[in-house]
C-alpha cells in the first residue's frame, strides 16, 4: 500500500474569484489550480518500492494578470522554485492544473509544449552555470530561435541578436565574445536576452539577482522592470530576498513547506502581514538602518523548516508558530479569502461569514 494513497487530500484551496477556465477573464495570463509536485522516495535493495514522497509542492493555487508581477517567496525547501519549474512544464505536476491564457497546458505533449514555451520562458539564478561556456554570446541568444525554426537568414539572425543585446543594455560587438569574458551582471543580461529571444509573454524568474553582487543587483532589477513596462511582460518572480521581492512585485505569495500560507497585494502584505509565518519572516529581515532596527519589534521563531517528506499534521507551521492553538495541531487550515485581494491559511483568520 502506498502512503500516498492513504494521505488525506488537502482541501482544494479556494482563492480564485475569477471565471472558469473555458472563459478566462480578460487580462488573466496564468492560473494555477491545486498544483502538486511530489517526488517519489524509493526503498529496498532489489525490489524498489515507493515508500513515500517528498511533497515539494502540495496544493498551490494562484493566478496572474497580464503585465503583473507575482512574487513567490519563502525559505529553502518551501517549493517556490519547484512551482516555477512546474509552470514551465519542466517538471510534471502530480496533481492540479495549469492554465496559460485560458488553455490547460498541464498535459500538453512535446509538440504542443513547443508552442507554449515560445510564450513562457525562464530566467535562471546562476549566470555562471546557465550559459554554455563554449558558445559565443551570439549563438547562446540565437539558439532558441533555431530550436523553434525561427532563425531566418543569417543577416536577419544577426540583426535580431544585436537587437536583443541592445534591449538588455549590451553592445553589438559583445555578440562575438564568450561568457567568461563578462561579469556576473552582464552574464545575467545575456541570460535575459536569451529568454526574450522568442518574444515570450510570461517570464518565470528564479532568483535572478541573488547570485549577483549587491551593487549590481539594482541594475538587473531595474532592467527587468523596464522590460516589463516596454514589452508588456508578466512575471512570476521567485526569490528569497523579501526586500527585492517587495520592490518588484505587485502581489506576493508566501510559501511554506509546499503551500501558499498567505497571498496579498504588496503593500498590504508588508504593512500588515497576517499569517504568523509571514510576520516571522518579515521580522527576521534586518533593515539597513540602525535607528529603525533598534526600534523594530522582533518576532523570532524557533526551530527550522521540517522535512517535506514528513510534514507535520494540521497546520504545517504549527511546530514553529508562537501563537499555535490546539486546533492547529489537528486541522490543516485552508487558504481562505479574506477579501478580493487577500487570502490567508491560518485558523486565526478564517474566511468571513
Amino acid at each position, binding site marked *: 500500500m502506498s502512503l500516498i494513497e492513504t494521505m488525506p487530500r488537502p482541501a482544494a484551496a479556494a482563492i480564485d474569484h475569477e471565471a472558469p477556465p473555458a472563459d478566462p477573464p480578460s487580462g488573466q495570463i496564468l492560473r494555477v489550480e491545486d498544483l502538486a509536485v511530489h517526488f517519489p522516495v524509493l526503498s529496498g535493495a532489489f525490489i524498489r518500492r515507493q515508500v513515500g514522497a517528498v511533497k515539494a509542492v502540495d496544493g498551490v493555487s494562484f493566478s496572474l494578470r497580464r503585465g503583473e508581477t507575482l512574487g513567490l517567496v519563502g*525559505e529553502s525547501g518551501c517549493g517556490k522554485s519547484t512551482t516555477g519549474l512546474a509552470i514551465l512544464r519542466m517538471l510534471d505536476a502530480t496533481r492540479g492544473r495549469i492554465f496559460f491564457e485560458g488553455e490547460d497546458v498541464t498535459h500538453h505533449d512535446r509538440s504542443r509544449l513547443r508552442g507554449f514555451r515560445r510564450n513562457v520562458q525562464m530566467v535562471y539564478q546562476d549566470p555562471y552555470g546557465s550559459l554554455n561556456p563554449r558558445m559565443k554570446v551570439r549563438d547562446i541568444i540565437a539558439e532558441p530561435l533555431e530550436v523553434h525554426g525561427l532563425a531566418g537568414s543569417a543577416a536577419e539572425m544577426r540583426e535580431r541578436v544585436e537587437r536583443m543585446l541592445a534591449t538588455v543594455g549590451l553592445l553589438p560587438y559583445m555578440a562575438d565574445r564568450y561568457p567568461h569574458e563578462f561579469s556576473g551582471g552582464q552574464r545575467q543580461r545575456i541570460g535575459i536576452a536569451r529568454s526574450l529571444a522568442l518574444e515570450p509573454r510570461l517570464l518565470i524568474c528564479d532568483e535572478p539577482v541573488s547570485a549577483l*553582487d549587491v551593487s549590481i543587483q*539594482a*541594475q538587473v532589477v531595474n532592467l527587468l522592470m523596464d522590460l516589463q513596462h516596454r514589452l508588456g511582460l508578466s512575471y512570476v518572480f521567485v526569490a528569497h530576498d523579501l526586500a527585492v521581492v517587495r520592490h518588484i512585485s505587485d502581489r506576493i505569495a508566501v510559501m511554506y513547506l509546499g503551500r501558499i500560507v498567505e497571498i496579498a497585494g504588496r503593500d498590504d502584505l*508588508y504593512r500588515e502581514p497576517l499569517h504568523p509565518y509571514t510576520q*516571522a*519572516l518579515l521580522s527576521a529581515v*534586518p*533593515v539597513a538602518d540602525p535607528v529603525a532596527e533598534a526600534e523594530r519589534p522582533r518576532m523570532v521563531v*524557533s526551530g527550522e523548516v521540517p522535512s517535506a517528506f514528513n510534514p507535520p499534521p494540521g497546520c504545517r507551521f504549527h511546530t514553529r508558530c508562537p501563537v499555535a492553538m490546539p486546533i492547529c495541531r489537528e486541522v490543516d487550515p485552508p487558504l481562505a479569502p479574506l477579501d478580493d485581494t487577500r487570502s490567508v491559511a491560518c485558523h486565526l483568520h478564517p474566511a468571513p461569514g
Partner: protein
Amino acid sequence: MATPLLQVRDLTTRFRTDRGVVTAVDRVSCDLAGGETLAIVGESGSGKSVTALSILRLIPNPPGEIASGEILFDGKDLLRLDDAGIRSIRGNRIAMIFQEPMSSLNPALTIGRQVAEPINQHQRVPWKQAEEMAGELLARVRIPDARRRLSQYPHQFSGGMRQRVMIAMALACKPRLIIADEPTTALDVTVQAQVLDILKELTRETGASLILITHDLGVVARYADKVAVMYAGRIVESAPSRTLYGRPAHPYTRGLMASVPRLDSDTSQRLVPIDGQPPDLSSLPEGCSFAPRCSLAFERCRRERPVLEPVGPDHLKACFVDVID
C-alpha cells in the same frame, strides 16, 4: 582611552596569480576595543575575507603573502609570532567562524569530540571533562537535547544547528576575539536571525569582541557597533554604525545604500544602481579604485590615491570629493 584589543596597521596581503600579483588587501588599518562588534562590509573581491584570514595568519603561502603591516593583539604583533606562537592564539584567544559549517566540520568525528578538541588541546583539559564542557557549550548555543547530540555526527545536524556548533567551538576556549566570516549567508533568514542573535548575546555575555564580515547592510545595522566599508582591497570609509547609516560620506557607501531595496523603502522610487562593473583587482586604476564608477569623480581622483581622513568623530573616509548632504 585604554589600548584597543586589536590594532591592524597598514596590513597588505598579496596573491600571485596567472595575471600577475594582485593586492587583495591594501594598507588596511582598523582598531577594535574589547567587547566591540566591528562589521567589515564589501562585495566579492573587496578583501574583507582576506583581511580576516590575514589576522589569523591563515593565508596560504604560496600563492599568498602578507607583505607588510602590523597586527597588534593585546599588544603583541601576530605577524612576528613563530608557528607555535600563532597556534596558541588561533582557536584559543581568537576564534573563527566560517560561512560553510559543513566544510569546517569533520564528517567522520562526533560533534562532542570536535567541540571538545580545542578545550583539550589549548587548555589541557582531559578528554572526558572536555566532552562534558562541550555538552554545556551546546546547551548555551541552545541546541535542544545537547547532551544526547554529543555522540552524533555533523550530517545529523541541520545547517542552522551546525552553525550553532561552530559558535560553540569558537566559544570553547573563551576567546577575546571572534571573527565570523559571512556566518549566516548559507542560512535561511529566520535561521539567520536565530544564529546571529545567539552569537551577539554570547559575545555580550563573555565580553568578547566580534568581527563580523558580511555583504548584508541590514545585518550590519542590526548587529554592529562600528563599520568598515571595503572596496577593491581598501577601507574606503569607517564609522560608528549610526554615523555611517545616518551620514554616509563615501560615494561608494552612499551608492550601496541607494541601490539596495529595503523593507521600508519607498517602492515608487527606482533603485539607483552603481554604474559599471565590480573592480578587477589585477588591473586597478592608478588613483581611487572607485573612480571609474563614481559619478562625482574628478581629475585628481584618477591620478592620486585618497587616504583615510577624518570627516567627523571616529568617522573616516578615503575620498577627495566633499559630499554635500
